[in-house]
Structure formats: structure tokens, C-alpha cells
């Protein structure tokens, strides 16, 4: 998979929407690293780097969650932050997701910028109410901004089983007032997380656990933010594969099995706001679309993309709007079962082949 990661980095080709991409802040950054400098980082390191850079830059930023302090978090995403910023800004909390989210809302209302971690994204269900009813609805109801980020280590692929493999993003998409981001590369993980921290709204940040240590890439040093838009990762004319998070890498791998220029791969990166223009522009050009979700199929993000395309790109479609997603069962533990359930590059390629032949 790190090979796939490399492939993705190597394959970034200008396409629809590309003009809107890239680093917004290019000047020398808070930690003095020269503009334009990069370093190879894992996806996980990029997340830590974003937290560190933003915490240095803005003293209102604080981190809270279970075991995120001296221990550095279950996945070590906050490693080193406690030493640098101390117990006030890197807070271990009791096991209480509603309070983690709810006190973050309060801290945000009082002028801080909390970044809270749910140890596994699956546990967000225990704090769901604070997220959807308090954080999500606040600004529209009252005009009060809730600048906070909820970091959600999500996704499967490593025998995590039914409670450590979920991709809950569609729940958030169906809750007005929450932004939803899902990076696939280290540079995006950093840039989107930094941008989320600077955003004035509650942002659900889906970090894919299976990418944490398996994907490496060049990441800009110092300040680096990415806009909440899609990115064309592979350019093509005959079929658009829409993906995000871990699925993006499989989509790129699948696309590479076809002649160059046939299959386009679009990395959504942001699910709310959804870059409808980029999706429609690509599909209108290729005329065929395959949408890949790691989440359970029904009412997933991909359903929304499919509905969008089926409405607004209908007249340009040369074939059915196809989806590939996890079937509607919990994610199984035993690796063979898990592989049977999660989309694979093989299955993506097969679906692509079918569509191209339509």
C-alpha cells in the first residue's frame, strides 16, 4: 500500500478543479522552515505535524481526548505535543465522548479552538448527540460559531472487527452544520487538518487508520493548508472513479490497470462541502462514473454522489451510475471475511471494465 501511496503522489495530474488546489500559505512558516520545503512523512506524522504547527501558530488551539496526553494517543497522533505544550493544551480526558465533544463546543464558544479525538471513529456514536444537535446546529440557530475539530480514526482493513472499522462519515453528512473531511495522502492530511483547525465551524476529520503508517509522501513543512475541494489524481477521458480516504489508493491502483488516459480518478477530500462542480465536470466529460465507498452502501457518501450525478449530469451519461461499497453488514474481524466485504482494487477494476464496455 505504501507503494500505492507513492503511485498516488506520482500520479497527480492537472485535471478539472486542479487550479483550485495546492498550498494556500506558501510563505516561511512559524517554525522557520523555508517556504516550499518538504519532508517525507507518513500520513500519521503529517497529522501530528499539522497539530504541532497549528498549536504553535495559535495559542487558542488545544487538544483533548482519551490518552492523548503523555501517552500520545492510541495511534500516537499526538505524540510529543504534551511535552511541548503541557497539560492545559493537551488534555487527557475521562472516557466520555459526549463530554469530550460537548466541552469542546463550550470551549469553542468561549474562544478556544479545541481539536478533540475520539479514540476510534466507531465510538462517535456515544457522543453523537452533542455533535449533531449541539455543535452542528449552533451557528444556524444562534449565530454563534463553534470552531472545533473532531478527529476520527476510521476505517478497516486490519482485522479491527465490527467496532473498530467503521466509516461513519455519512451520518455526519446527513447532519446539517458539520463539515466533513477525509484525506487520502499525507500532504492532504496535514493541509486539510490545518485548514479544519482554522475553519470557524465544527469539522469532522476522518483519518483513515489503515493509511496511518502505510502511506508516505512529501509534506510541506511549516504552515500548510488545503482548500475543501476535490482533486483529480489521475486524468482520464472515458470513466471517472470517485473515491476518498483509503479507497482512493485502491482506485488509483485499479485505474493503472487500464491504458493511461482512459480512467480518471477524483479524490473527493471534502465530503461537506462536496465539490459538486468537480464531480460534475469530470463525469460530464467522461460520461461514465464509478463511485467507491468503504462505508456500508445504503445512504453512504457514494449514494449522495450518485444522486447528484444522476440528476445533474444525466444527459451526459453513457452508462449507469455504478457504485462499489461495503455491503450492509458490520465489518468482520477475520481477514478473509473482511476482504470479502471491503472493496478491493480487483473489484474496482472489474467494475470499471464493465462500465467501460457498457
Amino acid at each position: 500500500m505504501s507503494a500505492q501511496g507513492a503511485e498516488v503522489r506520482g500520479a497527480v495530474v492537472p485535471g478539472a478543479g486542479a487550479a483550485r488546489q495546492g498550498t494556500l500559505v506558501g510563505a516561511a512558516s512559524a517554525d522557520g522552515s523555508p517556504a516550499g520545503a518538504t519532508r517525507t512523512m507518513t500520513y500519521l506524522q503529517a497529522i501530528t505535524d499539522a497539530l504541532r504547527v497549528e498549536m504553535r501558530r495559535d495559542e487558542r488551539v488545544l487538544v483533548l481526548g482519551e490518552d492523548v496526553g503523555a501517552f500520545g494517543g492510541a495511534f500516537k497522533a499526538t505524540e510529543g505535543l504534551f511535552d511541548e505544550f503541557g497539560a492545559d493544551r493537551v488534555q487527557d480526558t475521562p472516557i466520555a465522548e459526549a463530554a469530550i465533544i460537548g466541552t469542546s463546543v463550550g470551549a469553542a464558544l468561549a474562544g478556544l479552538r479545541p481539536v478533540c479525538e475520539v479514540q476510534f471513529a466507531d465510538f462517535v456514536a456515544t457522543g453523537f448527540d452533542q455533535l449533531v444537535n449541539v455543535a452542528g446546529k449552533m451557528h444556524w440557530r444562534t449565530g454563534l460559531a463553534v470552531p472545533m475539530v473532531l478527529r476520527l480514526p476510521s476505517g478497516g482493513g486490519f482485522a479491527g472487527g465490527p467496532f473498530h472499522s467503521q466509516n461513519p462519515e455519512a451520518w455526519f453528512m446527513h447532519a446539517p452544520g458539520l463539515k466533513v473531511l477525509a484525506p487520502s495522502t499525507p500532504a492532504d492530511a496535514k493541509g486539510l487538518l490545518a485548514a479544519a483547525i482554522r475553519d470557524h465551524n465544527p469539522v469532522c476529520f476522518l483519518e483513515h487508520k489503515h493509511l496511518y503508517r502505510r502511506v508516505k509522501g512529501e509534506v510541506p513543512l511549516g504552515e500548510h493548508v488545503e482548500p475543501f475541494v476535490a482533486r483529480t489524481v489521475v486524468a482520464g477521458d472515458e470513466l471517472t472513479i470517485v473515491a476518498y480516504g483509503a479507497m482512493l489508493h485502491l482506485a488509483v491502483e485499479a485505474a493503472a490497470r487500464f491504458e493511461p488516459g482512459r480512467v480518471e480518478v477524483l479524490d473527493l477530500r471534502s465530503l461537506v462541502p462536496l465539490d459538486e462542480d468537480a464531480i460534475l465536470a469530470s463525469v460530464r466529460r467522461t460520461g461514465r462514473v464509478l463511485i467507491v465507498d468503504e462505508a456500508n452502501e445504503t445512504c453512504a457518501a457514494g449514494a449522495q454522489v450518485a444522486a447528484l450525478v444522476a440528476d445533474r449530469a444525466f444527459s451526459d451519461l453513457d452508462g449507469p451510475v455504478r457504485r462499489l461499497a461495503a455491503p450492509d453488514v458490520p465489518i468482520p474481524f477475520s481477514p478473509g471475511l473482511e476482504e470479502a466485504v471491503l472493496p478491493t482494487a480487483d473489484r474496482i477494476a472489474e467494475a470499471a471494465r464493465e462500465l467501460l464496455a457498457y
Partner: protein
Amino acid sequence: MIGRAVLVEDPHPPTPDRAPDAASEHPPGAVPRTDDRPSTAPRLTLADREALLELMVGMRTFEERGVALYKQGRTPGSFYDGHGQEAIPVGAAFALGPDDVICSPLIRDMGAHLVRGTDLTEIIRHHLGRDNRLSRGREGNVHFGDPRKGVVGMVSMLPDMFVVAVGMAMAFRLRRERRVALTFFGEGATSPGAWHEAMNFAGLRKEPVVIVCENNGLAYSTPTSAQFAVPPAERAAAYGMPGVVVDGNDVEAVFAVTHAARERALRGDGPTLIEARTMRMHGHGSHDDARYVDPALLEAWRGRDPIATYEATLRGAGVDVDAVRARVLERLDAAVEAALATPLPDPAGATDGLWATDEPVPLGRGDAPWSGFAPAPPEPAAAPEAGR
């Protein structure tokens, strides 16, 4: 709305005779007992006391008008009132300084909004679904707060805003500010898990939060006997914080315990849970005839009406109670008239403002009418318009 009271020597220490005969049993049925009057009671001038009365009368009068407007079909949705509980929001909010926040006044806490100085016309516009600065018609009934006055409006889910209040208090503590967050909720709201998580965070980290639990004996139709085994104040110890029972129909007692809880929080000693015992005198909302409540119980509590009692006391102390009522009524009439003349919000704007696009504006300072506060320093930056 209430002018800053003049500092007059009129200490009015709480006297045992104002604490009614106690029964340790839980309401409904039991007459509450104030078991923790702070030893160093804060001073209330006669003007303060008049202000307290005026605020309670203001709440009662507003809510009576609200019920009428609702029954006339002018108020969409629902209407809730805190008839008989006025002493709690008024007494508690009166103990707050201008930088303190309330997060949030709940279903029976109209008086807290009045103490903070939220514009009455805006409140009525809000209730009527007219265009207004508090909610722009997006919210109704008790769901409002004026951020310009340091008040964050409630959500329905109980007691979510308590959790949020703990987070605000945490921010104050981290920034070493001398401020507290005060939160209100009913005794029924102690059952959801969110209550426990908030209590635990607050007690463990000694957050400067003042917790006012209004035990009015009922949660909708459910009596406390079907809600919990142990009254809220007794449960505070499980979180390492003091629990105080106060007569919720005694505005000065509520003021005194809240004042003490605030002082404690400002000292860095952490939260206090105040259980103000009272009785819900009306239905859950105006749609509810509360047939399930024993009329004898209501009758008994009617004799302890917080306004009637206080009015009698203040009349004895020389306050012109009729003038207070007249002032309140005049303001209310004007506000209702202005509100009724206000158009409905423009439907074209129904979906705007989902996202915050500008740098957030800090909460403003609330009115702090108690004479114990020094002359107010100048106002900081203004709070944002709702939904803009």
C-alpha cells in the same frame, strides 16, 4: 431593564424564619429546606431587593401574557412557563457578574434572561416567530439566548448545555479569567448520561461552574420517585463537589447560595451543585393540563408562592409594590405591541448562515444588577447577530 441599584446599607441577612420548616423527604409533598445558607451572606440593599421582586414579577407577567398569546393562537408551536419557580432563575442569575455566562437558561428560566438584560421585545418577537435578533425565527419558545449578554441559548436535549457550560468554564480556567459559567436544569435532567459526564468533568477538574438544579418534583408527568433513588444534591458528593439544598421559592436564599457557589468557583475550588426545591405549578407546557398532579399538593405550594411571599416582605420594608407591577406591565405592553408589529422573517433567508464565515465574536457582557458588583467597566466587542 433593571437599573443598577444604589448601594444602601441594608444587609438583610438570611434569617431562619424565611427557611420553611424542613422535611428531608423529597417533593412533591415535602416542603423544601434550606440546609446550607452560606455563613457570610452577601448584602442585598433595598434597591436590590426591589430589583429582585421586579424581575420575578417581570417573568411572571411575561409568561402570563405568553400563555394568553399562545391560547389566542398567536404563538406558533408551544409555550412553557416557570410559574412559581421565578425565585430560582432570578435569584441565581442575580448573583452573576457581567463577565459570567449562563449556559443555558432552561425551560423555566425566563427570569435569568431578564436579569441579564435581554431585550424583552426581542424575546417576544422570538416567541411569536417574528423576525428578531435572537433567533431570526429559526427557533421558538424557550430556545433562545442573547450572546451579547453572555447568554447561550438552550438546545432541547437534556442536559446538553450543562456539558457545554463545563467546557466554557474550562476555557475560563485555562485562561485564568475570573468568570464562572452557570447552568440550569430540572431534576429530570439529572438522569441522562450527559449529566454524569458533565458532573464528572466538572468535579474532577474543578471547573468554575455553578450548577443550578431546579427540583420541581416533576419531569413532564414523571415524579421524582420514578426518576431517581437519591436526590440530586446528595449525589454531588459522588463527583467530589458539594451539593446544597435551597428553598427554591425564596429568592434571597437562592441568591445567597449561588453567590457562595460563585465565590467558591472563583477561588478555584470547583463547582457546586445547588438543588433548588420547588414545585411545578402549571402543566409541562401550555398544552398540558397536568391532571396527573394532586390538586392538594398544588394548593399547599400555592401558599408558598415566591412572588406573593416576597411582595409581602418588601411591602413591609416600604417598597411600592404596585409601582413595581405597573412598571413591569407598561414595559410588557410596549414590548408586545412592538413585537406584534414586527413582520415574519423573510423566507428567502431560511437557509442562509449555516456556516460561520467570519472570525467568531466573543460573547458580550451581561447586566449584573446586584449592587455588590463594582461600577461596570466599559463594554468589550459586540456579539454576533444570530445566523449571520
